């Protein structure tokens, strides 16, 4: 191998590691800052075997390999600020662009970081309550940090020299004033313990750490010494100072991370009213009074772990009590139904006595979170020119919060969410007040879409858009609600409602609705047994008849429709087409109504008048039996039992002339002495529309009083039976015809008439006429007024019948001979059939 080959090999051996060491990673921010500035702060991580040395003129970076070259960078290009050896091998430095290039070229440099600026933002608790999000907001061009507000910290004083607490005391610093009430001989309210500084940092630190309201000022009310115990009088003096100086320093919040004890234990209250009246030296009353004067007073709930009550003065009715949660929103310490708010209170990092930070726990730490949040809400109210009360501030925090359920107290609490509460104060509160849900299908009217719009200042305008570029104002009335002033055609609408306040902070709410079209009733046709009609609204039909209506209904939304048919308000059908039977009791005018309803309760109706005629005539459903009457004796005969009306009509009776008939169907008449004989009575019944008639016979008997008074009638004139019209037929002719039981009706007539086959026994002398009456009585109960034999084709019965008749006659003669001696009776039997029979025999 010649000398040239050896040289090349050596070059390769050295070149490979050089190439590897150039694989250097540098944060992009380093170059970004160098593009803006002459120098950049970096953190340089060296290779494990490298080291750095500094002298007045340069920085030298070398490794343990004696063969490698040292990297020497002029002091003009690099300035080391920190050196590290344990956590990492490297240093922090401020370098120029040229210095950075030399570091890049160094084989001993492993990594160059951009020196990030870290801000400790109460690492967990500030973002937990979304306060950091609020700090990025502006209102009217002002950052929302609590600027202009002052928080009075009644505690162990404040380490106002801390760089996160303003590094000074008095107007112009963060801690603008204060007083040492605990030891008035030492006016300086400087914190000699750390508790008050920790509380103050949580509320308003601004520096290496950021509190909840970093722009707020602080007042150091030192009422505790290093023992962290004090008396009511000193706490009262602190509250009094804050209230007295509220206007001068714009004190809007008092925070008290303290609690009343008795013999070393916290005094716990379960109700505000009990607390207000408790003898605590007046601290609760003073706190309530401060709150009523427009200062939110936040106080610690205490740490005893009680699940039903909290300490004092947190329990005061106007005091905003604060309990604690950890970073997972799990409750610790005291709680109960009168606890107002929760905030982070476990292992919270904040400012302390020297220029350092410590973690502390307890409701002491939760309380200033609420104080800082209140300061920002007061700032928003001031920027909006709104006048709000401490209670409104508390309510905003309480109602716009994270809800946290606690099983041990079985209660749900509000853990503050400052972003939510701030937005509630910034923007108008636009709330839909109707009953519809978003996306509902409705039949629109103007009162459906109503909103309430409120703001801590004033509402300027409320308007809406209906999914287009057009905007429409809403109108309001004395109710304070805002309404849509329009009817819209059917369709789907994506609505956005807006409201703005005097600073033109605009709130909007989207609301989607579907305006449903109503059903439409088209043509209809009705039918019954005798008629058909289209689109007529008056229907004529007889009872006991069926009515059908076919009706056309459409709905452009294709909603499911419901139907309801009513007659005189009573539902008779729930399907579209009607088929209804009017029964026998339906006569009269009926109101027929059809209602059709869609899925959103939009309905349309159609009505008819149905005149139902009386259809069922009354009928005589039994033959009225013939009856007797006596002369000169009032005769009555009720016929109502023989008539019926299926449809329960009121029946109207009428009867042949000469008779009277009552409304209940009783026929009456008093026959005269010469009226004896048989009469046919025709009685008619009607339901007012349809009449029905029938007849029956009444046989008027001669009475003894009429006989003795010289009654000149023919008495016993049995052949006088055909006396139509009812008055007795007084002639003595033999009619040989008797009509009985003839029923006529409008639809039915029944007639039983006999002529040739009727046999009549007659007594044909004047005496015999008299004897006839005696004869009748002599038959003793048989009460024959005449004997009519109608044999028809049954002639074989004639002989026995005649024989029986003769036997009856002889029996009568026998009796008569016993009672009236010497009298003779003549019987005449006349009948062609009898004679024919007699001759044949």
């Amino acid at each position, binding site marked *: 191998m010649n000398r040239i080959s050896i040289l090349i090999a050596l070059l390769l051996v050295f070149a490979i590691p050089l190439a590897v060491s150039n694989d250097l990673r540098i944060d992009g921010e380093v170059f970004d800052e160098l593009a803006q500035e002459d120098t950049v702060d970096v953190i340089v991580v060296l290779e494990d075997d490298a080291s750095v040395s500094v002298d007045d003129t340069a920085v030298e970076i070398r490794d343990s390999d004696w063969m490698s070259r040292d990297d020497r960078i002029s002091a003009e290009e690099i300035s080391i600020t920190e050196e590290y050896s344990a956590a990492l091998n490297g240093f922090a430095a401020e370098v120029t662009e040229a210095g950075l290039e030399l570091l890049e070229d160094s084989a001993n440099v492993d990594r160059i970081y951009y020196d990030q600026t870290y801000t400790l933002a109460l690492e967990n608790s500030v973002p937990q309550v979304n306060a950091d999000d609020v700090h990025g907001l502006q209102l009217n061009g002002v950052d929302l940090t609590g600027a202009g507000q002052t928080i009075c910290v009644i505690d162990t004083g404040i380490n106002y020299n801390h760089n996160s607490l303003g590094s000074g005391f008095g107007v112009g610093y963060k801690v603008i004033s204060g007083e040492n009430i605990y030891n008035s001989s030492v006016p300086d309210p400087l914190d000699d313990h750390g508790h008050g500084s920790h509380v103050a940092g949580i509320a308003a630190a601004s520096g290496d750490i950021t509190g909840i309201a970093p722009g707020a000022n602080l007042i150091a009310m030192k009422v505790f010494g290093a*023992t962290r*115990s004090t008396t009511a009088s000193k706490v009262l003096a602190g509250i009094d100072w804050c209230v007295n100086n509220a206007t001068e320093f714009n004190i809007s919040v008092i925070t008290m991370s303290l609690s009343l004890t008795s013999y*070393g234990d916290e005094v716990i209250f379960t109700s505000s009213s009990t607390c207000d009246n408790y003898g605590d030296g007046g601290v609760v009353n003073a706190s309530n009074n401060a709150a009523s004067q427009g200062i939110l007073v936040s106080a610690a709930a205490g*740490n*005893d772990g009680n699940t039903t009550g909290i300490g004092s003065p947190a329990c005061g009715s106007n005091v905003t009590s604060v309990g604690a949660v950890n970073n997972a929103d799990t409750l610790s310490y005291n709680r109960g139904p009168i606890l107002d708010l929760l905030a982070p209170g476990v292992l919270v990092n904040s400012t302390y006595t020297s220029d350092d930070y410590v973690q502390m726990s*307890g409701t*002491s730490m939760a309380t200033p979170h609420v104080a800082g949040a209140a300061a920002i809400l007061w700032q928003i109210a001031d920027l909006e020119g709104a006048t709000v009360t401490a209670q409104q501030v508390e309510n905003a925090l309480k109602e716009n919060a994270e809800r946290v359920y606690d099983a041990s107290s079985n209660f749900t609490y509000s853990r503050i969410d400052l972003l939510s509460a701030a937005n509630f104060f910034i923007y108008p509160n636009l709330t839909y007040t109707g009953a519809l849900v978003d996306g509902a299908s409705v039949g629109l009217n103007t009162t459906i879409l109503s909103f309430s719009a409120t703001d801590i200042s004033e509402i300027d305008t409320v308007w809406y858009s209906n999914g287009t570029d057009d905007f429409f104002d809403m109108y309001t009335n004395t109710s304070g609600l805002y309404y849509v002033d329009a009817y819209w055609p059917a369709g789907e609408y994506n609505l956005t409602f807006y409201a703005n306040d005097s600073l033109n902070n605009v709130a909007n709410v989207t609301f989607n609705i579907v305006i449903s079209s109503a059903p439409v009733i088209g043509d209809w046709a009705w039918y019954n047994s005798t008629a058909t009609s289209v689109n007529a609204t008056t229907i004529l039909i007889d009872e006991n008849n069926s009515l059908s209506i076919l009706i056309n209904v459409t709905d452009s939304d294709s909603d499911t429709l419901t139907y309801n048919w009513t007659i005189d308000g009573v539902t008779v059908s729930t399907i579209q087409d009607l088929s209804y039977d009017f029964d026998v009791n339906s006569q009269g005018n009926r109101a027929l109504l059809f209602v059709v309803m869609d899925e959103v309760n939009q309905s349309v109706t159609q009505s008819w008048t149905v005149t139902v005629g009386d259809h069922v005539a009354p009928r005589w459903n039994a033959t009225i039996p013939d009856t007797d009457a006596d002369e000169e004796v009032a005769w009555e005969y009720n016929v109502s039992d023989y008539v019926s009306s299926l449809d329960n009509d009121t029946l109207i009776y009428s009867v042949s002339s000469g008779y009277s008939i009552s409304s209940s169907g009783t026929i009456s008449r008093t026959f005269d002495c010469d009226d004896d004989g048989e009469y046919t009575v025709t009685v008619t019944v009607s339901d007012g529309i349809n009449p029905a008639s029938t007849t029956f016979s009444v046989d008027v008997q001669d009475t003894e009083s009429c006989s003795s008074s010289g009654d000149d009638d023919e008495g016993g004139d049995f052949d006088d039976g055909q006396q139509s019209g009812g008055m007795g037929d007084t002639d003595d002719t033999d009619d040989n015809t008797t009509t009985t039981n003839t029923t006529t009706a409008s639809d039915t007539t029944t007639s039983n008439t006999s002529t040739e086959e009727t046999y009549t026994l007659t007594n044909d002398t004047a005496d015999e006429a008299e004897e006839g009456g005696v004869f009748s009585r002599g038959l003793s109960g048989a009460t024959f007024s005449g004997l009519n034999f109608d044999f028809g084709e049954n002639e074989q019965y004639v002989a026995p019948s005649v024989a029986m008749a003769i036997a009856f006659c002889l029996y009568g003669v026998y009796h008569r001979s016993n009672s009236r001696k010497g009298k003779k009776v003549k019987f005449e039997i006349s009948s062609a059939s009898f004679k024919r029979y007699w001759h044949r025999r």
Partner: protein
Amino acid sequence: MDRAVVIAVVAMMGLVFVMYVYEPADISDPLFCNSDSDCVPAQDCHPTSCIGLGSKTVSDGVFCTTECAPDTMDCGQGSCACVSNRCEVNWRE
């Protein structure tokens, strides 16, 4: 020596011995107690020890800061108990 005298001397010596070895509770001790309820925190705020209730000076109406201070009985870190007639802190691990 009379037997009875011997017995009496032995009995006396026994009594003296018992009196010598038995140390009765000192009820004047500020830590004396018969039950847990006799014991209260010795300090009004952020207590670190316990004391008998009768020995505690009146300390009603005192206000304390509400942090959980380390090595105190704050926030349930400890409680007072009566152990062998003396008030002690029952520290929770």
